[in-house]
């Protein structure tokens, strides 16, 4: 007999993006994507920000150890072989806010993968062998990330972009801090954080909704809930509340951003460490980095940005699209094509659960130097409110965003990723879909009118939150001159 659903479980039909909760606390949701494949993603609400001091990367290490898949009924290597025999693939996603295990298989293999995922969730073998393997893989992933010539500039932008928040450690961690981790520490961290009641299971792709519900009940419902008191350590907790330094006040009611509205899909907060408060950057700062033998000068400008759940996140995204998306974004159009100052430009809007950064990075064309490049880049970013945005330009940015966001839901694995990230970062797995609806022109739907997504509103936001904000400038001249 299957276990009964918990009282808090939703009564919505499976197959929608409505979260169900099993009696052991595991949350799950499923959404169909037509095709031949099915994706299974298990996302735990523990990420690099939860790593203990001096152990940057511990959550990543546990994730790698789990991904090896060795467990009570799966000897080492069998998980991967089972996936391969199914014609599928698997992977991991370490992140600042969460840790996720991914698999993608032909749809008829779905139940086998659910069994295997439940197995590595409930009975993982975190022994010396798993630890050695995980550490080797973590070192390799860390090394791979450092291979591009400008990787250390990108790293510095994050490390120095956050003043205090553990986000500054990045998602991958530091292998040197993990060299002496033993199996006992690995197991203890796993027990505290990688619990079924801190996980979200997402299934997307081709499946029969009723059958899937039975499978999930059968394979995951039988996992024993964690013992009382086996909660997460508050290691990353530095404050008890976290108003973002750049949370967007609504135009009508200036002040800190309100909490996102309660939703039946909201990620539960019980057991979570309180958010860390990132202070506002007190003043602009310029740092010169001496990176060896760079072929071209480079500059990065870093502004504090609001967290993913900010009520005006859509406006930030639109501003980002106007400046940095596509071949005709303002930064590229002006600095690469028109003025020839830069060889390459990028604008990244990084929005985590508790804070974010806006990072404009450029490689100067030959003959340029870093400081003038940074000045030009800054000028162009800050000019957004001054230069009129034509309806055509706004529609173009909207088209770029629409396509990018449609792609987030177009394949089973992309949708699983989107749903879980929205759940963890924004408290609602459907938030990304809501964005897409709100993107349409106001005449077409009510969502856009409510969101107030107009060029004037975007410019106003920029004028209020970015133009006067202190900025961190990182400069690297070619050849390592500092």
């Amino acid at each position, binding site marked *: 007999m299957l276990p009964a659903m918990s009282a808090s479980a939703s009564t919505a039909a499976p197959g929608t993006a409505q979260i169900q909760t099993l009696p052991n606390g595991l949350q799950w949701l499923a959404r169909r994507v037509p095709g*031949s494949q099915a994706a299974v993603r298990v996302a735990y609400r523990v990420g690099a920000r939860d790593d203990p001091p001096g152990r940057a990367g511990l959550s990543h290490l546990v994730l790698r150890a789990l991904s090896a898949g060795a467990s009570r009924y799966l000897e080492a290597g069998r998980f991967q072989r089972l996936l391969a025999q199914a014609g599928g693939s698997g992977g991991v996603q370490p992140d600042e806010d969460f840790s996720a295990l991914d698999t993608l298989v*032909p749809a008829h293999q779905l139940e086998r993968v659910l069994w295997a995922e439940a197995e590595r969730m409930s009975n993982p073998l975190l022994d010396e062998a798993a630890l050695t393997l995980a550490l080797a893989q973590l070192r390799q992933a860390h090394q791979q990330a450092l291979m591009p010539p400008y990787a250390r500039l990108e790293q510095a932008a994050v490390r120095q972009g956050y003043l205090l928040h553990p986000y500054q450690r990045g998602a991958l961690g530091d292998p040197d801090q993990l060299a002496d981790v033993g199996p006992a520490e690995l197991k203890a961290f*796993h027990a505290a954080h990688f619990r079924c009641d801190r996980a979200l299971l997402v299934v997307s792709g081709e499946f029969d909704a009723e059958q899937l519900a039975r499978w999930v009940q059968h394979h995951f419902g039988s996992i024993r809930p964690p013992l009382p008191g086996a909660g997460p350590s508050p290691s990353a907790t530095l404050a008890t509340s976290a108003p973002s330094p750049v949370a967007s006040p609504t135009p009508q009611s200036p002040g800190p951003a309100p909490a996102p509205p309660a939703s039946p899909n909201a990620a539960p907060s019980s057991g979570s460490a309180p958010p860390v408060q990132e202070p506002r950057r007190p003043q602009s700062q310029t740092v010169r980095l001496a990176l060896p033998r760079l072929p071209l000068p480079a500059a990065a400008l870093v502004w504090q940005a609001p967290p993913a759940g900010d009520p005006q996140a859509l406006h930030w995204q639109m501003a980002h699209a106007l400046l940095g998306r596509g071949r005709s974004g303002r930064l590229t159009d002006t600095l690469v094509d028109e003025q*020839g100052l830069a060889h390459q430009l990028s604008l990244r809007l990084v929005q985590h659960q508790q804070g974010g950064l806006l990072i404009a990075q450029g490689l100067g064309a030959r003959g340029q130097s870093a400081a003038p490049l940074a000045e030009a880049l800054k000028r162009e970013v800050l000019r957004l409110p001054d230069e009129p945005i034509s309806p055509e330009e706004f529609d173009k940015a909207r088209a770029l965003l629409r*396509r990018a966001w449609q792609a987030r839901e177009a394949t089973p694995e992309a949708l699983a990723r989107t749903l879980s990230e929205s759940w963890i970062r924004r408290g609602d797995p459907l938030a990304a879909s809501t964005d897409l609806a709100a993107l349409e022109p106001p005449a077409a739907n009510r969502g856009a009118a409510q969101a107030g997504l107009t060029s004037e509103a975007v410019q106003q936001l920029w004028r209020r939150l970015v133009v006067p904000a202190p900025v961190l400038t990182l400069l690297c001249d070619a050849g390592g001159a500092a």
Partner: protein
Amino acid sequence: MKRRHLLLASTAAPALGGLSAPAWSQRGFDQPPEPGPAAAPPVPTVSSTALPNGLRLSVLEQPAAARVALRLRVPGGWWRETAGREGLAELCLSMLSQGARRGDEVMDSADLAFAGDQLGRPLRQFLSGGGAELALEALPDQADDAFNLLADLASAPTLTFEALEHQRERAQDALALLRAGAQDLAPWIARRQFWGKSVPVASRAGLQRLKRADVQDFHRQHWRPEKAHLVVCGPLGFAAARDLAMDCFADWRGAKGAASAGTAATAAAPPASAWMLPLAGATGSGCRLLLQTALPRSAPPATRALARVLLLQRLAARQPWPWESGIEAGPGPASPAAWRLSLTLPPAAVAEQLAWLREQLPRLAAEPVTADDLALAQALALGEWQRALERTPDESLSAAIAAGELEDWVQWPQRLRGVSAPVLQLALGACWQEGRIHALLVGELPPADTLARAWPGLAAATMRAVIGE
């Protein structure tokens, strides 16, 4: 029935002095459930025709897709560059997006960029040895805009002096970047290592010598309708796609008097070699390790794919690393293809890994292929194909057409099933034989003596020797 949950064990373990509580036996969870019945693999239907001007059109109709994807491919890749004109294919491709005519109207680079972005995804340009491609995407009601834009770019680029100067400078900067990063540089060195010095590699001085007339000639030679292939995938029927192609591309005429396009050189693979190229200032950035072997062109595509995925599986079963594996075609029909394995490693791990590979790679390739191995490889290769068909059908179809493997692509499931274990073993065993593996290390290297012990014969190379500048 409850699973014995590790949380219980791991929570209790520290308190019990590290002793793990034994999990108790449970029926029903000790074996994976049997898979359900597999759905029949899809059979993609590709409709093809040729326009009066010779442009070939292939359409894969996908009614459920949200967007129409277009790819226009010509054989003007870097293998077509002649000595002294290295970098020309890339320069020509990049200049297409710098200006084009539509009737009497001239669109500059900003107009073209804006037009592509308006469709929702920027114009993309791809260059390989075998060809050059332009790719666009659009919603179905904007498909005509995408067809028009693609036709303008391919058939009526302005190729101005200003665009040449702008793109030349960008190409020279890109070259400097390429040489600073081991990951991007390594494949270029590997090509020279594998096919010899006939592989064209751009140099700063060479780029400086290129003239507008060179670009125009290259465009005339290779960007011609009778050499081009347009691939359309998405919610657009064949008739509609053909009509749009006729409307937009019918006026495209190859310029008269174009010089002979020539044929790409045929390169025979030099004997196996082992090179290491340290990059100055690469401290902390890691070492890029590449291994290559020749893959006979006679091996059918399905056999090649099965060999590739099976070897990766065998490596993954013994190694923790995420190896990348790819097969690159050579310059001519008689040239062997290069099967390449690559990986980034911390320098401290390189020597041991290299020694292991030298000893084990030939053994892994020579292992008997069992029925289970064959089934596993078939499942993996089928899964790869299905995912490509659903995610990036235009890319996958265009690549198959360019390789002359459309028939195989369409009938992929049957082709995979048609490969037997002995045939697969023969193909796999013919590769990665001792003495026939090229090894290459680029970036931050461990001490040379440790490497020499790991792979005897490993020789230091210089940028000047392998790239020529």
